[in-house]
């Protein structure tokens, strides 16, 4: 399976190094092939601009975004997120107490592999863990409260470069590999993989939408989508991806979704956080 993945990438990218030994997970080699593929395919897109998704691919779209981002519709979510973030729980502790650097400017380090649980922990999951540790009910991973909190945390991290670590731990490598496989596996009635749109076809239209490149796609999350008329979390975005190919979405923050985010975030290492983003 993994060999097929590497081969698929290699086919798009003639200069990609040949797939290494079939049963070796090699994130570093994957990273290079992935980065090279996008930068060679879109030589005119500055590397840091990939985080702006479809706006890095289409000038007409970009102009509208610049106008919208001048006073962006996610402003209200951002304000709400800051207020939530700064408001102590009844026990007097705050979200900041759960995180390194009081939670400011740390978005780029998520998701991370947690050696204790053996699982990938996303920022959204870490926020709910924080809530539960302080006696609060977890938030719905797809709804506005979670979007507001993550929007604020992303905002304080804007410009910081993704720095996702894959420790030399069999379980971390397995999570990475599962995420990669999920990303390249075709599913749904349309028989599309995530990669069909976001690796093979970025910049192209599917019906009406300009497809975002997979490189940097996680950097803008959470996003305000005009189509939704509101904010969406990473979970909402992944569920939409599955539904749009008429597949069956996983549960929000399902282990596999977290693995996909782990894979995509690692592929975006070195790119700046741009979230929250505005998208069509």
């Amino acid at each position: 399976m993994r060999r097929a993945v590497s081969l698929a990438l290699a086919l798009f990218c003639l200069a990609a190094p040949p797939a290494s030994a079939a049963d070796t997970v090699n994130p570093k080699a994957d990273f290079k092939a992935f980065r090279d593929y996008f930068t060679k395919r879109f030589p005119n897109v500055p590397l840091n601009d990939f985080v702006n998704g479809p706006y890095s691919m289409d000038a007409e779209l970009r102009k509208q975004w610049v106008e919208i981002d001048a006073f962006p519709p996610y402003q209200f979510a951002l304000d709400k997120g800051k207020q939530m973030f700064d408001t102590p729980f009844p026990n007097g502790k705050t979200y900041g107490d759960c995180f390194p650097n009081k939670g400011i400017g740390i978005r780029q380090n998520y998701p991370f592999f947690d050696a204790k649980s053996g699982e990938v922990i996303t920022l959204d999951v870490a926020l709910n863990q924080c809530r539960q540790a302080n006696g609060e009910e977890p938030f719905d991973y797809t709804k506005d409260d979670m979007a507001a909190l993550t929007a604020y945390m992303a905002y304080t991290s804007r410009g910081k470069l993704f720095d996702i670590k894959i420790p030399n731990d069999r379980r971390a490598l397995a999570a990475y590999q599962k995420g990669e496989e999920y990303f390249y596996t075709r599913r749904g009635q349309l028989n599309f993989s995530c990669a069909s749109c976001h690796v093979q076809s970025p910049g192209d239209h599917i019906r009406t939408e300009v497809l975002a490149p997979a490189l940097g796609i996680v950097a803008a999350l959470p996003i305000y989508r005009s189509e939704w008329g509101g904010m969406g979390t990473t979970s909402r975005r992944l569920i939409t991806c599955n539904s749009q190919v008429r597949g069956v979405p996983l549960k929000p923050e399902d282990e596999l979704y977290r693995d996909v985010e782990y894979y995509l975030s690692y592929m975006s290492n070195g790119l700046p956080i741009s979230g929250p983003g505005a998208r069509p």
Partner: protein
Amino acid sequence: MDNNNSSRETSERSGPTRRVIVQGAIAGSLAGLGLAGVAPLSRARAAADASKWPKDAFAQKTEADAIKALYAGKMPEASDKVNLDAPEIAENGAVVPISVSTTLPDVTSIAILVSENPFPLAANYPIQPGTSPMVANRLKMAKTSKVIALVASGDKVFSASKEVKVTVGGCGG
């Protein structure tokens, strides 16, 4: 109360530069004193007045009728002094950035119509003396349509129009 900090700037950020958000003085002080329900004089005096809203023009279902209702039968003339900035293809019909400016003198109002919307008149802006004849807003478009900018200048009305393609309509679920 504190939206200032949320506009914190990072010099490396990739989007356009953000300006500091103006503090909400009244909202802040009132809420702080627990008086949010009591409208002070300045607040009451400032209230926007719905009675001046041009109901008739907004109720018209065709472009021609809306124009008639707005300008008492005066017919607009096309003018290259009316600048209408709208996208060729809207990224989403729900949020179409549209702006209008003009170099015409004595401007008293700027209106924007979307011909194919159920009610073509989208917005009408009376322009006070001392206010620049320029406005930017974001509109919904049900489908591909002509967008018309109308500028009342002196005792005449001038217009510019542009076809905006909409592939995802902004008025449906």
